[in-house]
């Protein structure tokens, strides 16, 4: 670790703090990659933040847009980025030059917990690029990977022209969220074995009528009829052999494998897909990740790091991080409270059959078996859960009431957003709905030879909320740009099954 620490541009006093905090973090059991802190000026910070934490990315206007937003809101004093950390081994975290020492310490404590989460949570395992053959360390060289992506796109921009490359990337970015969260955990698809293809297709049996007397056979089941029936079955079987055989949710991967792309297009699409999968775990674990980091920064700061003169500054900062606003979920707040809730329950033994079966409010209130398993439990939870399973398993009725959670929705009649419900079931189901698939609709490729004209057919598994239509049309157009044939998507609009289609020239929409 020391070899990295020496390379940082940290001033001495911060380096001393880093050593101290790192030790505290290790002592409480956090297990992190080596972590490098760098101090950045505000414009460097805005640049790095616009690039999603990385020093360099592929060329694209959207980083510039993000940079403008960040630097404007910084200049006008609207907001300030305190901290940035990237999932890489070694992890890189940035401190903002000129922040107070309390802020810097808070950020460091926060960062060590994030890095522990990156290293240990199962969702982030898919960002691993293998093992170092010598040390056996987890390889996550994403800074290099992003720089390579930049080199690839730049190379093609130079040869083909920035305009066409950028337009193609815009089309790919429209599809960025059409990936399959389960894909990284599925066994690698074996390439279809040749032996299977060589086998002659089985001739299906034609069900024959029962014949009691042999000489009647050719009359009851005439040969021509049997033959024609056989042919019909063979045809039907061929028809049934759809491609893809199963609906494919990894739309980007499907296009990469099957769309008629030129080499530069294939390489750019691969870049977008790789980055989409890299960022996926951060979206799947927003509540847990921020909750975990906030839990540990608050413990470390109050128990180890701060001295008496700093505690008020710390509390002020911490309170603004955990503040809640109407109509907006603060993942920091929900996460930290849920981790504390779990720890408390497992410390007091409030789990298991006996606890679940107990209806006596008084007993439950003072239930304390002194099991003391809380610490162990939250470490287990941080490894094995993502936001959806975390909420599903540990959100309790008591917690919803204590934390004043409510679900809200849009009231058409009053033309405003309103609180809808405070019951446990409603809150939980609303929360799970908005977290499922990281808040994205579930889309799959169902047929790559739609209407036998090699058109692409996708399906939206409707779960109560319609798609935003003007955008959906643009996405269908982007798909047809990549697929180069007409594309159709089946969804539900105002309770009616509807097909959105783009045939290369114009959009159409029809009820099914």
């Amino acid at each position, binding site marked *: 670790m020391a070899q990295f620490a020496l390379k940082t541009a940290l001033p001495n006093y911060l380096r001393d703090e880093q050593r101290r905090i790192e030790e505290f973090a290790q002592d409480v059991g956090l297990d992190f990659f080596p972590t490098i802190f760098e101090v950045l000026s505000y414009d460097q910070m805005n640049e790095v933040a616009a690039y999603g934490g990385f020093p360099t990315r592929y060329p694209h206007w959207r980083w510039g847009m993000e940079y403008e937003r960040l630097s404007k809101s910084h200049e006008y004093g609207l*907001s300030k980025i305190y901290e940035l950390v990237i999932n890489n081994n070694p992890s890189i975290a940035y401190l903002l030059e000129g922040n107070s020492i309390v802020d810097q310490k808070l950020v460091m404590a926060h960062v060590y917990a*994030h890095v522990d989460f990156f290293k240990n949570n199962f969702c982030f395992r898919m960002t691993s690029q293998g093992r170092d053959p010598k040390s056996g360390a987890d390889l996550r060289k994403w800074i290099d990977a992003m720089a390579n992506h930049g080199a690839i796109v730049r190379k093609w921009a130079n040869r083909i022209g920035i305009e066409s490359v950028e*337009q193609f990337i*815009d089309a790919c970015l429209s599809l960025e969220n059409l990936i399959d969260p389960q894909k990284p955990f599925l066994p690698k698809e074996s390439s279809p074995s040749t032996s299977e293809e060589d086998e002659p297709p089985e001739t299906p049996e034609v069900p024959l009528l029962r014949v009691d007397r042999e000489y009647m056979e050719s009359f009851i089941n005439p040969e021509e009829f049997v033959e024609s029936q056989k042919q019909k079955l063979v045809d039907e079987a061929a028809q049934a052999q759809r491609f893809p055989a199963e609906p494919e949710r990894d739309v980007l991967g499907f296009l990469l494998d099957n769309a008629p792309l030129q080499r530069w297009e294939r390489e750019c699409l691969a870049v977008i897909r790789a980055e989409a999968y890299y960022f996926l775990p951060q*979206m799947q674990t927003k509540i847990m990740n921020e909750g975990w980091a906030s839990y540990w920064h608050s413990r470390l700061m109050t128990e180890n790091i701060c001295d008496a003169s700093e505690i008020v500054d710390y509390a002020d900062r911490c309170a603004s991080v955990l503040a809640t606003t109407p109509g907006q979920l603060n993942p920091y707040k929900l996460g930290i409270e849920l981790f504390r809730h779990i720890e408390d329950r497992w410390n007091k033994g409030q789990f298991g059959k006996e606890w679940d079966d107990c209806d006596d409010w008084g007993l439950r209130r003072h239930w304390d078996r002194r099991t003391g398993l809380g610490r162990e439990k939250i470490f287990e939870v941080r490894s094995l859960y993502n936001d959806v399973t975390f909420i599903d398993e540990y959100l309790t009725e008591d917690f919803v009431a204590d934390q*004043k959670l409510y*679900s809200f929705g849009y009231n058409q009649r009053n033309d405003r957003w309103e609180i809808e419900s405070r019951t446990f079931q409603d809150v939980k189901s609303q929360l799970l709905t908005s977290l499922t698939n990281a808040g994205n*609709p579930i889309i799959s490729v169902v047929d790559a030879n739609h209407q036998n004209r090699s058109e692409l057919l996708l399906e939206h598994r409707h779960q109560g909320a319609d798609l935003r239509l003007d955008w959906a049309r643009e996405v269908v157009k982007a798909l047809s740009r990549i697929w180069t044939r007409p594309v159709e998507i089946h969804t539900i609009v105002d309770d009616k099954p509807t097909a959105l289609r783009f045939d290369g020239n114009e959009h159409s929409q029809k009820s099914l």
Partner: protein
Amino acid sequence: MSLRIDQDHSRFRNIVRGRIRQNLRKYISKGELLGRQGKDIVSIPIPHIDIPKLRFGDKQQGGVAQGDGDPGDPLSGSPQEGDGDGKQAGDQAGDHPLEVELTLDELADILGEELALPNIENKGKNAIVDKKDRYIGVRNVGPNSLRHFKRTFRSALRRQIALGTYDPKHPVIIPTREDMRYKSWKTEQEPVANAVIIYMMDVSGSMGDEQKEIVRIESFWIDTWLRKQYKGIETRFIIHDAAAREVDRDTFFRTRESGGTMISSAYRLAAEIVERDYPSSEWNIYPFHFSDGDNWSVDDTLLCVDILKKLLLPASNVFCYGQVDSPYGSGQFIKDLKEHFAGDEQLITSEINDRDAIVESIREFLGKGK
């Protein structure tokens, strides 16, 4: 310092300005450009281009949040869309909104940048001159109060190093008389640009509250911009229906009269004010007139044209007429003006149909840098 992101940033700016990638322009979300002085909120326009994706329509979705309130209670402010793709990366602890406090100068800068307004060319009226001392150099003699400490130190250090009397272990620098440096100044003559804005508004029965609000917002921004351009700007306010009178700022925005409209009355009063108080050789004059375009008679319109041609236009930098859309007005006046002043760059007309059109209208008025 040049940053790697500069390229991406200038590409984005070019898209926003519509120089490249025209097809993306339709996704630019409208930046609001509303401001008030004092405690009220100022929203800063930040152009944003959304990349269309398959997402849920937001009104059907709802969400979960924390806090007080009963079912059925409205949420203050509209909820933000979920943690979208914007913050895909890293973990940005504490992106805390603060209340924004801007000076009017800063506001004007933002306005100028957003609308790409050119700085106004002074009409070259340099009659009023002001003297000003500016510190521009350094010399070897001067009063002690103007001693330039850093320069003095530097020359003493240089001398000591050259003489070999400088000891890094005991870095004591003793300046001698020759090392002393003093700031020196020069008196410059600065022309003072003087400007007056004359706001005229039609307050006849057909101008409703919404129309006045539009005028109020628009004149606030015009005021902000011109104040940035000229020091010592003056404003005069005239309201008119069938007769015109000069009022203070407050009355200007509040009054609602009824009755007919004779625009010439306002123009005549404006011409009188200019002649009496603002000799055009010394002043930059900006008359702005807002109306719903419904004038009393054709004769009166001809009279207006006459006053404009003979009195107001020759004296003014530019004359601006903004026509607010109203359900009662015929909107004829703007057509008449266009007809009579076709090709005259000194008279700028603009139609303001609703609040969204304000920004465009300000651009029309001030975009020429006159």
